[in-house]
């Protein structure tokens, strides 16, 4: 029987097998193998190097990406990220990115209108404080932590309770993240790993704290993040139609470790973002908060963690009601027919105005900027690819609470649950011509 080296496996002890154990010399069978493996261990690690830090973000904070860019027929080019650094705003005149194509007056306007914050303008002293404080709170990639302090500066053990961001979990998560995710999502979760800029849609930037495909009830509370289940589901199923593959062969333990680590990155990144936006003034990036920068960062971290904690509460999840009938039961064909036809009407209705964004059922939808400043496109609903999952309940959640950052608003308030089900049924039928005929709807060729 072979030894299992793959990180996709669990050993008898339930511990994930990672590359760390790979380097253990006693897996060898041949004497030469053991000897050379011993030699080989020198200089090999599966963890991040001890001196590697997260560092401060160098790219500007995009405050409202959707306002910055016009609609476009084509997506971003590979090899380009939205905005690398504000310095480029002046130098990269010929770049193809719409932000750079905007004339310099308009670019200045972005800064003046406070759509973009330039982190490069923060003074060296402030940067130092920020860096030290963040490291105190969140550690380094090699030993990540979420060490929240209370108002008096004492460690607050309870702040992150229930988020599963303890040091051991995060350490495991960090190793897994380095192997599986770093490549696209980058060390700090900024979506700027070595291949990050070559994939489109660009990998998610966790630092903004916005997660698209969630089941938290944003109709009630817009500040909610995502539940662990949402992140785990995205890891397992991948995101169809993007470069995010499925990791469903990782063990449950590994998935949970990764979820914890992603939460850690997101909390850390969002703390930083909130500090940049809240503690400084827009024009000169000079400190304006009277409590002092360090305290501001602590404050920010507390509120971010609080939002994450709230998102985990079962009460804040979308309550998906039962559909009035079982649409898969052959006996209910007539009910389904009526439901789909109602859904079609709703789709074209002024109230929802679905057709306003999903032009021609999404077939003619243009690219629009999202909150990260990247381009995304209202889904082409005739293709049958749903990024957030294809279950009925997934579609329900998308319509109910919207897709954060993308411009898809929550409709949970305007629509009754039955109406949402009608829409879901319609959307499910839409990609299949044969099915459309069966339920008596027609869309142009």
């Amino acid at each position, binding site marked *: 029987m072979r030894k299992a080296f793959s990180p996709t496996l669990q050993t008898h002890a339930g511990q994930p097998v990672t590359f760390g154990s790979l380097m253990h010399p006693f897996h060898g069978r041949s004497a030469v193998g053991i000897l050379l493996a011993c030699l080989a261990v020198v200089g090999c690690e599966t963890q991040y190097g001890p001196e590697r830090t997260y560092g401060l973000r160098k790219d500007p904070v995009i405050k409202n990406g959707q306002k910055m860019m016009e609609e476009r027929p084509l997506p971003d080019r590979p090899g380009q990220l939205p905005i690398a650094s504000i310095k480029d705003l002046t130098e990269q005149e010929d770049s193809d990115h719409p932000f750079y194509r905007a004339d310099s007056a308009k670019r200045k306007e972005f800064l003046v209108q406070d759509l973009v914050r330039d982190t490069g303008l923060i003074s060296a002293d402030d940067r130092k404080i920020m860096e030290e404080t963040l490291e105190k709170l969140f550690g380094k990639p090699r030993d990540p932590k979420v060490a929240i302090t209370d108002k008096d500066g004492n460690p607050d053990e309870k702040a992150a309770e229930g988020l599963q961001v303890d040091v051991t979990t995060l350490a495991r998560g960090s190793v897994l993240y380095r192997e599986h995710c770093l490549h696209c999502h980058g060390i700090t979760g900024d979506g700027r790993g070595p291949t990050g800029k070559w994939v489109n849609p660009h990998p998610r930037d966790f630092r903004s704290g916005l997660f698209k495909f969630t089941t938290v009830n944003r109709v009630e509370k817009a500040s909610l993040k995502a539940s662990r289940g949402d992140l785990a589901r995205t890891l397992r199923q991948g995101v169809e139609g993007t470069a995010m593959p499925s990791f469903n062969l990782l063990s449950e333990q590994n998935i949970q470790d990764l979820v914890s680590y992603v939460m850690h990155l997101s909390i850390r990144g969002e703390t930083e973002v909130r500090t940049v936006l809240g503690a400084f003034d827009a024009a000169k990036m000079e400190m304006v908060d009277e409590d002092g920068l360090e305290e501001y960062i602590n404050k920010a971290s507390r509120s971010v963690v609080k939002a994450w904690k709230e998102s985990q509460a079962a009460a804040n999840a979308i309550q998906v009601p039962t559909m009035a009938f079982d649409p898969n039961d052959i006996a209910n064909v007539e009910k389904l027919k009526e439901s789909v036809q109602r859904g079609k009407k709703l789709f074209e209705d002024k109230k929802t105005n679905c057709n306003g964004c999903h032009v021609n059922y999404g*077939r003619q939808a243009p690219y629009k900027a999202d909150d990260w400043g990247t381009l995304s496109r209202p889904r*082409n609903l005739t293709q049958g690819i749903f990024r957030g999952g294809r279950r009925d309940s997934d579609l329900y959640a998308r319509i109910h609470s919207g897709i954060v950052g993308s411009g898809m608003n929550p409709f949970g308030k305007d629509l009754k649950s039955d109406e949402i089900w009608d829409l879901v049924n319609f959307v499910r039928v839409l990609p299949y011509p044969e099915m459309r005929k069966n339920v008596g709807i027609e869309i*142009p*060729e």
Partner: protein
Amino acid sequence: MSHAVHDEPGLKMGMPLPNGKLAMWLFLVTEIMFFTALIGTYMILRNGQTSAGNPWPQPHDVHLVEWIGAANTFVLILSSFFVVLAHHYLHINQPGKGAAYLGLTLVLGCVFLGVKAIEYKSKFEHGILPGRVFEKLDGPRGYEYVAKVKEQLKDIVDGKHHVDSKAMDAVKQLLTEITDNKLSPKQVNERVVGTKHVKPVDMPSNPQNVTGILELDSHAPISYSIPWGNLWASCYFAMTGFHALHVLGGLVIFAAPLVKHFIGGGLKPEDGLFVENAGLYWHFVDIVWIFLFPLLYLV
């Protein structure tokens, strides 16, 4: 260790050919392989995938005119004949006549390229270029097609492009209907080319039996769907493009002895070898066209 001279083996080894001529033949072998690969690819792509319901474009669909191609073939054959004459006159030491026939060859080569340029222009005008042709009109591509046609119709109505007055009404009508978002991409295509010429694969679900704008004015600059159009354009430009490059190379080769004749002090019978090699090359270029013409224009 000493040997008498009469023991020497035969002095000249190898073939009774000058090195240059041998090398030219070898070069032509490589060229044959090159064009074989090109033509073979074309035949495989063309015959391997098309079906009765989704046929390869006819010459008419892609603005190929048979008689122009035929005339060009004649031009090239004639020029090949003149090279033979040029070589003949150099051989019998009449360099003046030789140079004259070389000049004629050169001129005919230029004529060939000129005609080719005219043919290319009509492709460029109608957007029959690799990657630019609209093929099957289902999916998002269909709506790009509608947008494109709308733009072209607007240009016509605005007077930027001229169409026959017969077609003007149809153009205006189509533009309003597109603006009102009444037509599906396939219907737009039907209105452009006319029901008779719509390919089965692009037939709308309810054909209208209309006369197309292109039937009224075949030169109207409006895009239309050509199934396999991108592949056709890819193959066409690859094959004729490389052939044209070879013709161009041939013209340069023929220019050399002419320059020598008029500037460098006159041609000599020894130059016959050069002209013979150039002629071999020219015959090859000619033969390639003789393959290309029926494959592209007639089959």
